[in-house]
């Protein structure tokens, strides 16, 4: 239902609290106690959202979370286009994550770029029994022969690697030496490590630090002359081209983007990043680690930004510009002014169709908070949100800058909870992932995938906002939602009163 103007915040809070109590009843006592800490109703003025986070998922509840491998290979490393990322272990992990994340890039795939190929050591029983180091050693030789233009190799560990005692670090060092100092990065992102994708991000960040920064000079492969306006985009995976529709704004305001982490990124860009004057960080969750490291080691400041929706874009452009001189500050104003007619036209077209519509979100990374502004620019209300793998600092940012009083908060939501919440609240739109999409559509609730942009995008930047607005409109206002009930079911039932 659209925003119920008759409901006061107090009423909404009471309803949400009651909903939480209701869903907790399904669990065995021990589980109910644990889950209760992850569900909350946001109180305005509080410094966080009142939930525990980044804690192990409970067995058997149908968590939506993935694993450390997904965080490293799937998110951080996978998009680096001129390196080969080996899914080291059995075939499945690489297969299920093959090409599904839509990290766009430009290159000749299979020759000088490799993002949408599935390289795996395809472990067999003998590799488990005798170890996989010999196999990965040989595999690197075969890569060098068949894919001679690769700029580097990463070894993305699947579960068995850490359990059978393989020494991929030794193999990496040895092969790097053999191939004249080639970048070969072992990544200990076995899926059983940590509680979600999140540790995989951290491990992947640390691997960049240890195996790229510590082993190469920024000048190694990038010979460009530094300028005072050099920045690096950190934590944009270029899903559907997000980093491109962001980069264009930064360049238009007079900055120079010397690296993209990691969507459409290259090894040379990673290596050159210490030359940046400012690291600008979109996905705080997955790449704050390397940003902090570069601040400590190279003295590069970093700032978070949000390129979803015109309000946040303008705010972010000004914030980024504040690190630079007047030329850039004027540049930011010029960019904001340039795109204002597009923003006005998009808003005029879509806001009347979306005004007052309610949204429930459950996503990863930064999106459970970052997209709220874009919805609000269209007159929509986010009434529930939660993180798949957020930490407390995510919930702090959410509470302090994004959500409204009374918003329902659900951390690491279970399939059961999410279904019940949506069933009772009946928002006009749910934004979550592929595993959730069809559940809610069956219920007759419009849905958009907010990981993959439902194969659309970009959603970042002004160009992306136009697509975002159109997509939300086509989801919510699709004529199909009026047809989920057969017309004969709508007909008033003949009353039996007379016969009784």
């Amino acid at each position, binding site marked *: 239902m659209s925003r119920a103007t008759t409901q006061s915040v107090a009423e909404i809070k009471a309803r949400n609290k009651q909903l939480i109590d209701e869903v907790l009843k399904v669990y065995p006592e021990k589980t109910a106690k644990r889950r209760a800490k992850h569900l909350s109703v946001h109180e305005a003025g509080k410094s966080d959202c009142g939930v525990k986070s980044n804690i192990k998922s409970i067995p058997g509840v149908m968590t939506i979370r993935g694993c450390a491998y*997904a965080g490293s290979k799937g998110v951080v490393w996978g998009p680096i286009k001129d390196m080969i990322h080996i899914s080291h272990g059995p075939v*499945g992990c690489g297969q299920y994550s093959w*090409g599904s994340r839509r990290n766009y890039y430009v290159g000749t795939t299979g020759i000088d770029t490799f993002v949408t190929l599935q390289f795996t050591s395809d472990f067999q029983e003998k590799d488990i029994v005798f170890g996989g180091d010999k196999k*990965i050693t040989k*595999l690197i030789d075969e890569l060098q022969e*068949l894919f001679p233009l690769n700029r580097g190799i990463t070894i993305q560990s699947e579960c068995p690697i850490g*359990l059978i005692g393989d020494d991929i670090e030794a193999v990496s060092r040895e092969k790097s030496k053999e191939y004249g100092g080639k970048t070969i990065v072992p990544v200990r992102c076995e899926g059983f490590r940590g509680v979600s994708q999140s540790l995989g991000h951290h491990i992947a960040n640390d691997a960049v630090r240890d195996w790229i920064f510590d082993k190469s000079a920024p000048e190694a492969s990038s010979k460009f002359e530094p300028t005072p306006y050099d920045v690096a985009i950190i934590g944009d995976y270029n899903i559907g081209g997000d980093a491109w529709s962001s980069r264009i704004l930064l360049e238009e305001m007079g900055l120079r983007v010397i690296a993209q982490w990691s969507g459409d990124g290259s090894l040379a860009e990673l290596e050159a990043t210490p030359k940046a004057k400012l690291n600008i960080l979109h996905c705080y969750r997955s790449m704050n680690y390397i940003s902090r490291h570069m601040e400590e080691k190279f003295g590069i400041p970093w700032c978070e930004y949000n390129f979803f929706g015109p309000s946040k874009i303008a705010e972010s452009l000004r914030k980024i510009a504040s690190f630079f001189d007047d030329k850039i500050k004027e540049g930011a104003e010029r960019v904001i002014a340039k795109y204002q007619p597009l923003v006005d036209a998009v808003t005029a077209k879509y806001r009347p169709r979306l005004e007052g519509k309610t949204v429930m979100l459950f996503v990863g990374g930064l999106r459970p908070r970052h997209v709220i502004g874009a919805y609000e620019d269209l007159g929509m209300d986010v009434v529930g949100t939660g993180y798949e793998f957020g930490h407390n600092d995510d919930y702090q940012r959410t509470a302090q800058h994004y959500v409204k009083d009374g918003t329902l908060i659900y951390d690491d939501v279970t*399939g059961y909870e999410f279904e019940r919440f949506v069933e009772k609240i009946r928002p006009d739109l749910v934004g979550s992932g592929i595993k959730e999409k069809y559940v809610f559509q069956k219920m007759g609730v419009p849905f958009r995938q907010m990981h993959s942009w439902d194969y659309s995008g970009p959603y970042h930047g002004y160009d992306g906002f136009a697509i975002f607005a159109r997509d939300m409109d086509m989801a919510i206002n699709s004529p199909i939602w009026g047809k989920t009930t057969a017309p004969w079911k709508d007909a008033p039932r003949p009353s039996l009163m007379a016969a009784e």
Partner: protein
Amino acid sequence: MTQNAEHILDHSELFRGDEYQQMLANKKALFENPHDSAEVDRVREWSKTPEYREKNFAREALTVNPAKACQPLGAVFAALGFERTLPFVHGSQGCVAYYRSHLSRHFKEPTSCVSSSMTEDAAVFGGLNNLTDGLANSYNMYKPKMIAVATTCMAEVIGDDLNAFIKTSKEKGSVPADFDVPFAHTPAFVGSHVTGYDNTLKGILEHFWDGKAGTAPKLQRKANNTINFIGGFDGYTVGNMREIKRIFELMGIGYTILADNSDVFDTPTDGEFRMYDGGTTLKDAANAVHAKATISMQQYCTEKTLAFIKGHDQEVVAFNHPLGVSATDDFLMTLSRITNKAIPNALEQERGRLVDAMADSSAHVHGKKFAIYGDPDLCYGVAAFLLELGAEPTHVLSTNGSKAWGQKMQALFASSPFGKNCRAFPGKDLWHMRSLLFTEPVDFLIGNTYGKYLERDTGTPLIRIGFPIFDRHHHHRYPVWGYQGSMNVLVKILDKIFDEIDRKTSSVGKTDYSFDIIR
């Protein structure tokens, strides 16, 4: 500015604008440390050569673009085919997120499955507590009638013993003692998703037939006249199962479909989410022991299951994804022989219609060369059908095909004059296929969605038949088995052939003399 509120440009058009193109060119030139474009071209051309093919085929450790998934995916697929059954995969949780996503991307349907969410401590101490808590939680939350347990490679490497763990879990009160918790060990480092399907189906039948892990008496077989039917891991399960039921009903055969997931992967959008729908009832799964015979449509998905069933004194018959006239004839005649039911006129007419369609169109397929890849049974079925059409299945590749499968394929080729120049490639991947398509080109490629990369690189038009199909919608709703299903496959192949002729003849004033209105 490229974007426009009136006509909003998608990614496919947006980035072609001058501003973006200039931006990307600058990015490359200044920051990406690109290889010289002549060098890229040289390597690209080299990758098409026989010399490259030789090196490519000499690979021993590296797999690139395999056409197979891991065991638990097949386990989940099979478990979802039973009434109110929740698949439960014991091990790391990320795996389950992957299986659910993978199946949902193909079927465009929800996929319900839970994990025991094992982490570092479970790696050290074993996952018993995870299993116990997990069973209790799933049982209470999702009210299943059965929980079918499989394993990820993590649980397998540390050696968790499902039989003992489930027993202990029940003793600890996780689920009632008589609640059905069949299990199968499904290590990802053995076989592929078809193996996982096999192990899980066998595990479920073993549970019901052989005394529920020592907690109930074994069933005594009292032979009846029904037939058990097993589809195997099948991306067309929704369409196929319904077609098969129609055939059984036309023939008047009493049947039990084992692992019937055709409803759970095809629930209506009517305001209600059905976590469970349809499926083989647990009663039917148990009673299947009494059947006269069991028929499997996919030999390589059911090797262990059929051996187990045979051990219970049933006749077992395995097909290889039968497609086309003769394979369907064989399937129906086998049904008829086992059940003593005649093949009805209605099916004979369908046969005649398929032959009619093949006769009408064979001129366009005859002599065309095809490359096929996919699961071993699917490859066999498609190749046999192509031979019937007078086409040549030149390269047939199955990453999860065994050497024995390769020999069986070669025997099929030897049985037809059109198979003379055809070759099977067991255990190879799609990067091998790339070399094959460059060095020994064919007219068309048959495979799943990943084949589009081969289509792009080699220019070989792709006909999408297989699993997964992510980038085309609803194909799984149409059967590919039976005469009618074979007709669907024929039309799919013909459509692509005609599209290609049109594409190649559509250049105005140059080739469009052949842009015919009638073909």
